[in-house]
């Protein structure tokens, strides 16, 4: 495959002058005159700046390294990814340097803002029957596709494609941005021999491909094609199809339902978009949103879709789109999200995945009215309502679980799907509550940050610092709880999916308990970093699961440390061989004299929760 695709459409833009010799940028702070803030997040602000030697405007992302939570290596990776790209449709990175304890990333200023800003702006003017017109959408998508194709031939996956990460320049140029979560598909600099599929759970749920949510199958560049399809719908309807649901439900809907279409959006939003978008457009979206990634077209194939013959050059975007865009200065106060700091599931220092999307938390205030009453139950784990609680008690154990032997005449009449869904709902409520708390803490952090920016001397005051750290600690605690929930939720979602598949394959199975797989409910009891004993519960389907895979899942969900992986896997196998025997084993690096296998100091324990019940 050639790097430069055979042009299927004649050049959309007038032939560009011979590529200018790459301009040099100094690494001196004095050469950059900082102007308006155009975005801010927990650990970074983005500002317009003037590069004095050439009187040229740029955007500078200032990352506070004292506050930055991921490792320096992560940051380095993100920047390396950017500097490895040289394509008109991928954000132009100029240079980066350290100013006191900040890292300044100098990038091209995309003064049109993000496509999301534009969509929101258009929507404030009312948008019956569609936000952007088809010619505009196809033109933008065409440019996005070229950036995506470049990414993919480079062996990279973007992993967080959405309108919020598509930037528009003042000349109408379209660029992909926010590499915070993107990653090499095969080893460092694409060096690996095989294209190893990835297993990490990143991205923003609404735009996330089912295989990325599933985690058991791995994914490749086709995950971006799914997000591309969702983004197409976002541009037509103003939001991603499931934007109004909480993240948990989005996962469930995406995994369980047929892929969303324009029709789905019509139903959900009570609007009729169909008349404004051609069959060809809808067909293209359908192709991208196929659950089987191998059936989705590649970026290169998509570029050949006749739909994009109608695509125009950036001049067109400049005229039509930027005319509708909010001005940069108005965004300066309005825009809250900063590329790379929010609006996605991202990794914390502890290795857990958390959500931090302001848009999302605003949008999913649509939960049911029972919320309050249900939440009131949360402190009593085995609520009398019979709804399965967070740490599901054995009696309400979901899934086509079956007892190992004779006593199995369980409540098989009960629809396992319904019980799972019930469990999910409870999780979702809990999740929502946690999310609210986190949002609240984030708000306080943001405020602190703002004070800091306005009054830098605050940085040095002890009380200010300890307040910040206290907030951080609180939030991390909540976020850890959240990870647990996410993990449980994923397990249920996957089970639901399996259940559905098995029901489809064999309608008899529902009535035939013996055909159901044996499921062991296992608990891993270990101490958290705060030294509290906690049970991590998970299901082990005999014949389907392997100890290794389960341990990896736990690791991926941030519930295990890397060094615990092997020992946990080994002990899961041990437990499976003899489920009636609790297994206690050493973990962590607790000093010899403190070790205590009764109190589980320096030890963890695995046991089966539900045998014969």
């Amino acid at each position, binding site marked *: *495959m*050639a*790097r430069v695709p*055979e042009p299927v459409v004649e050049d959309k833009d007038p032939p560009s002058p011979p590529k200018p010799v790459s301009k040099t940028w100094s*690494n*001196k702070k004095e050469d950059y005159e900082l102007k308006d803030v155009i975005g801010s997040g927990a650990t970074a602000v983005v500002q317009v700046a003037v590069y004095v030697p050439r009187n040229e405007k740029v955007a500078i992302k200032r990352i506070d*390294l*004292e506050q930055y939570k991921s490792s*320096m*290596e992560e940051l*380095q990776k993100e*920047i*390396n990814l950017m*500097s*490895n790209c*040289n394509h008109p449709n991928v954000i132009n990175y100029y*240079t*980066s*340097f*350290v100013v*006191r*304890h900040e*890292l300044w990333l100098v990038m091209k200023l995309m003064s049109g803002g993000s496509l999301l800003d534009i969509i929101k702006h258009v929507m404030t003017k009312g948008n019956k029957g569609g936000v952007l017109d088809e010619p505009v959408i196809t033109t933008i998508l065409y440019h996005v596709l070229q950036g995506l194709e470049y990414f993919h031939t*480079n062996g990279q996956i973007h992993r967080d494609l959405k309108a919020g990460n598509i930037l528009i320049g003042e000349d109408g140029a379209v660029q992909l941005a926010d590499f915070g979560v993107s990653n090499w598909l095969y080893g*460092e*600099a*694409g*060096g690996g*021999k095989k294209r190893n599929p990835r297993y990490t759970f990143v991205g923003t749920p609404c735009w996330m491909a089912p295989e990325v949510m599933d985690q058991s199958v791995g994914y490749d560049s086709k995950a971006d094609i799914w997000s591309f399809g969702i983004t197409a719908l976002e541009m037509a309807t103003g939001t991603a199809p499931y934007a109004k649901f909480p993240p948990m439900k989005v996962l469930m809907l995406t995994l369980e339902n047929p892929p969303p279409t324009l029709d789905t959006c019509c139903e959900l939003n009570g609007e009729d978009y169909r008349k404004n978008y051609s069959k060809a457009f809808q067909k293209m979206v359908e192709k991208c949103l196929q659950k089987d990634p191998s059936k989705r077209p590649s970026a290169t194939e998509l570029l050949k879709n006749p739909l994009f013959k109608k695509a125009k050059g950036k001049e067109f975007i400049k005229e039509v789109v930027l005319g509708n865009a909010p001005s940069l200065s108005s965004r300066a106060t309005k825009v809250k999200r900063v590329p790379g700091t929010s609006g996605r599931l991202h990794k914390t220092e502890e290795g857990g995945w958390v959500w931090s999307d302001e848009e999302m938390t605003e949008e999913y205030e649509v939960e049911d009215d029972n919320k309050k009453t249900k939440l009131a139950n949360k402190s009593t784990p085995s609520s009398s309502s019979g709804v399965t609680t967070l740490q599901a008690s054995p009696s309400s154990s979901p899934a086509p679980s079956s007892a190992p032997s004779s006593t199995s005449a369980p409540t098989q009449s009960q629809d396992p799907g319904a019980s799972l869904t019930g469990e999910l709902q409870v999780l979702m409520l809990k999740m929502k509550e946690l999310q609210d708390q986190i949002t609240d803490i984030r708000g306080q952090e943001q405020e602190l940050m703002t004070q800091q920016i306005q009054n830098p001397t605050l940085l*040095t005051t002890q009380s200010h*610092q*300890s307040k910040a*750290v*206290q907030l951080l*600690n609180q939030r*991390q*605690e909540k976020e850890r709880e959240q990870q647990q929930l996410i993990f449980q939720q994923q397990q249920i979602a996957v089970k639901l999916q399996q259940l559905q598949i098995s029901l489809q394959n064999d309608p008899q199975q529902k009535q035939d308990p013996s055909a159901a797989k044996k499921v062991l409910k296992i608990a891993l009891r270990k101490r958290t*970093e*705060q*030294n509290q004993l906690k049970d991590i519960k998970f299901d082990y389907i005999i014949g389907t699961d392997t100890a290794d895979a389960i341990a990896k899942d736990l690791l991926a969900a941030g519930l295990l440390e890397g060094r615990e992986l092997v020992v946990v896997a080994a002990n899961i196998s041990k437990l499976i061989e003899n489920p009636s025997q609790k297994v206690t084993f050493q973990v962590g*690096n607790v*000093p010899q004299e403190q070790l205590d296998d009764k109190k589980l100091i320096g030890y963890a324990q695995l046991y089966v929760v539900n045998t014969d019940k």
Partner: protein
Amino acid sequence: MPLFAKVKNPLELVKSLRDYLLVLEQHGSGSKKAEKAVEESSKILQQIKSILYGSGDHEPQTELAAQLAQEFYNFDMPFHIIKNLANLDFEAKKDVAQIFNNILRRQIGVRSPTVEYICTKSDILFMLVRGYDNPDIALNCGVMLRECIKHELLAKIVLESESFYSFYTYVELSTFDIASDAFSTFKELLTRHKVLCAQFLEGSYDKVFDKYHVLLNSENYVTRRQSLKLLGELLLDRHNYTVMTRYISNPENLKMIMNMLRDKSRNIQFEAFHVFKVFVANPNKAKPIQDILLKNQERLVDFLMKFHNDRTEDEQFNDEKQFLIKQIKEMSEGDGGKVGGAVGGATS
């Protein structure tokens, strides 16, 4: 849709690549001839890459790949492409790194023919190190160099050469991505092959740590933070026991670390703590070390009592802190360094 009129075999590919590279060497950049050579080299590199990695629906071609590697050695290709790397275009540079790394990873049984080849052509390694001097190729060279030093033989050559010391300059470069790439390589060199690293650190102790102190006192926040963190890791690695004992018996080192405990940056304070603890936990403290600690006994206890008290979640840190406070409190003049009899988890 064949892009190229005729598919060349590995020998032809390597031969013509060499010819174009020769043109580049002789004509420099800018001339018509050189321009064509750049363009043609890019095309050949793409073809080579697709043999090694496969392309689109095509799998890598194993047999051709083997031939290709052989021709690479025969024509000294790794040497020539790296020498001319700066003259190639942006994408071709990335292709070179991928091709180089692929050929480097080749194995025949337990043998790594490319590693053997580079051992006889160590200039390749030094060219890669010098790559950090040129921002246009620094990251490409870094990717290749790190792949090289995964092999102990090659890491040894770099460590034992003068060019190792240029890393002390590279990690302080003002461009963050290049400096931190150089730092990753530097760290790999000092930590990857434990026994080799320990031998090296012992053998070159004075030179390595004299220069290291410049990094610890750098103006650049990132350099300071990263090098302090690495220092802690080096000292706590049991392979480096001899180095650690030597380091912690030098009072100058203790003074510096104590100052860093009071750095403005909390992250640096915290990293400094992890080096400081090694000094205190040492059961056989040298006299000068003991003197400093005793002289500051009260102040240190006070300081530690208030040190990062909000870090309540980090149990290990709090245990270690309590341990240090106890150790320092219990020190007295006549102890002759036998204070820390029970070494906690800190040094073991």
